[in-house]
């Protein structure tokens, strides 16, 4: 007789974190478009309105700047708001509130105040949602002093990093991935804190650095590589601020070859910062310049094959790793 393993989804793991947050801290409120009756465009907040009522879970009009701004004010005035921005693409409508307000209040006002705000949003491709609903814009937040930036790839991290975000005194941008909501696995009881990168697979031949959905594609590629006798060391960054490059550098010093895989567009993206830092910190051990495999420098098309061609796939990751190793694909 086997016991049923308690698996859960990324979506449900997020919801449980929100539920726990709402339960343990009366100052937590959730607000955003369709977070209540509809349960969230991707179902993350489903059921929370019924359980916690309209004072804790607030459906808002379609007013991104106003909503994020209201959350900033709520945070300044003693609440711990969790605001859901339905697509990270809509951050473009709220950048003033995110960058000029939330991120700067503490510093601008000389440390008198803080903005304990969690901005949940989701990005990425995978649903042929087109150029305005498929971007990966985390580089904007990485480049903004004052923000923290979490990018969970796994069910367990989705849960625990969100719980951790709910304890931060500073604004956290929490970027989920639309293609991960239905991924399913055990929910771990613990996870390392934000700012700790985790090795998801061990290997001696090439260091692969990634986060969010691309982790899964890297692991798939690593499996294919293993069949060709190449062992990849796959490291999941989990949070981009704080950023933990120690395991990456340690790995790079062993392998001499680093492949950085991100879904955001190449130029000026997160992969650039990672490549620069890896070069800075592991220069003497590198056999090749860190290789960046990222989204193509194009607006993301709707046609599914084009969409998929615009981001790294397991096959492209595999080929890139082989190229980096100087081997024919």
């Amino acid at each position: 007789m086997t016991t049923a393993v308690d698996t859960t989804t990324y979506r449900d793991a997020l919801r449980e974190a929100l539920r726990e947050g709402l339960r343990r801290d009366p100052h937590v409120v959730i607000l955003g478009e369709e977070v209540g009756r509809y349960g969230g465009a991707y179902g993350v907040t489903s059921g929370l309105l019924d359980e916690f009522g309209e004072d804790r879970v607030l459906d808002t009009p379609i007013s991104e700047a106003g909503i994020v701004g209201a959350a900033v004010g709520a945070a300044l005035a003693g609440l711990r708001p969790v605001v859901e921005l339905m697509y990270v693409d809509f951050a473009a409508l709220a950048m003033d509130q995110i960058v000029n307000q939330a991120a700067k209040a503490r510093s601008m006002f000389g440390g008198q105040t803080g903005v304990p705000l969690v901005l949940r949003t989701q990005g990425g491709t995978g649903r042929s949602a087109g150029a305005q609903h498929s971007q990966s814009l985390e580089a904007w937040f990485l480049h903004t002093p004052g923000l923290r930036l979490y990018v969970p790839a796994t069910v367990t991290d989705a849960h625990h990093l969100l719980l951790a975000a709910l304890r931060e005194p500073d604004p956290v941008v929490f970027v989920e991935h639309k293609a991960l909501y239905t991924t399913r696995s055990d929910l771990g009881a613990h996870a390392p804190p934000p700012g700790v990168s985790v090795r998801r697979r061990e290997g001696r031949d090439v260091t692969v650095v990634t986060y969010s959905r691309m982790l899964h594609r890297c692991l798939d590629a690593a499996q294919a590589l293993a069949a060709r006798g190449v062992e990849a060391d796959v490291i999941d960054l989990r949070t981009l601020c704080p950023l933990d490059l120690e395991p990456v550098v340690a790995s790079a010093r062993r392998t001499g070859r680093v492949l950085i895989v991100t879904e955001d567009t190449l130029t000026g993206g997160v992969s650039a910062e990672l490549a620069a830092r890896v070069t800075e910190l592991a220069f003497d051990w590198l056999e090749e310049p860190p290789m960046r495999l990222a989204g193509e420098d194009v607006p993301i098309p709707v046609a599914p094959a084009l969409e998929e061609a615009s981001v790294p796939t397991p096959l492209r990751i595999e080929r890139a790793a082989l190229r980096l190793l100087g081997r024919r694909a």
Partner: protein
Amino acid sequence: MSRVTSPLDLLRVMVRIRAFEEAVGELFVRGGTAGTMLHLSIGEEGAAAGFGLAMRPGDTFTTHHRGHGVFLARGGDPRRMMAEIAGKAAGSCRGRGGSMHIADVTLGHLGANAIVGGGIPHVVGAALAARHLGSGNVSVAFFGDGAMQQGVLYESMNLAALWRLPVVFACVNNQYGMGTRIDRAAASLDFDARARAFGLRGVTVDASDATAVFETATQVLADAREGRPALVTLDCFRFYGHARKDRSPYRTEEEEREGRSRDPVARLADRLRGEDVLDDDTLTAMRDDARREMDDAVAFALAAPPPDLAALHEDVYAPDRPAPPSVDAYHALVYPEGEARA
């Protein structure tokens, strides 16, 4: 009613819109469209046909994510539309835009937008261009009631009024933004008052009555052409879910029944039958024609080849400007295969 557009024209366009939406909805369910989102304008045909037919050739417009109807009313080609929604190279946007970004600039279409409110300010600039170029054209922004809560609308209304531009803001008020009924999104539902408060004319019209929409639109467009911009609220009901698969659990059955009773197609058909302008055979023929036209469009879309992957980097910049290099091409340069490092 103008001499050139008859009530039968309005009806025909509405019937075609409905047929298009039904056909594309089925295509979606069969997995033939690109992507997981498809927003149908069934129930909004009166707004689309009534307003669309009142516009002149040369008038420009922007549409929102639920824009097939307006697009068709302005002369959209169902084949190229269907191919676009299917993500095919034969689509009007080469399969890159899909349903939410469908556009055909030859119709004066400045583009559809998947950002709620994103296309609204564009008509301010287009109207500025019209005045500058002396074209005499009006520019019309179509958007949903949800966009009534986007700040950029008020910035745009103020600019249009301040500069006395040939602009009409056309709010297709289908009562819902996703699962949020308009009275749960807006504290005041008197949209005409919002318009007046910004110095524009505000008019609300029952968009289940296509001829009423046409008449209001004709008048409002004429006014706009003279530099008196307006906000027109086209009251209607979203018959189905937000997206094709949403079953609208947030609405009561009664509400749905009541909303669907305001069917613009049935209403005009009934009226014309009552006036002996239309008989059952003509109506049936109209519907059959429309269905055939849309079936043909679906067949065209299904048969059309997908976009060429090699075209991925095209149209990011103008054709005579260098395209961004592909990541693979860049890697080939930086990490040449089989070559050892110096």
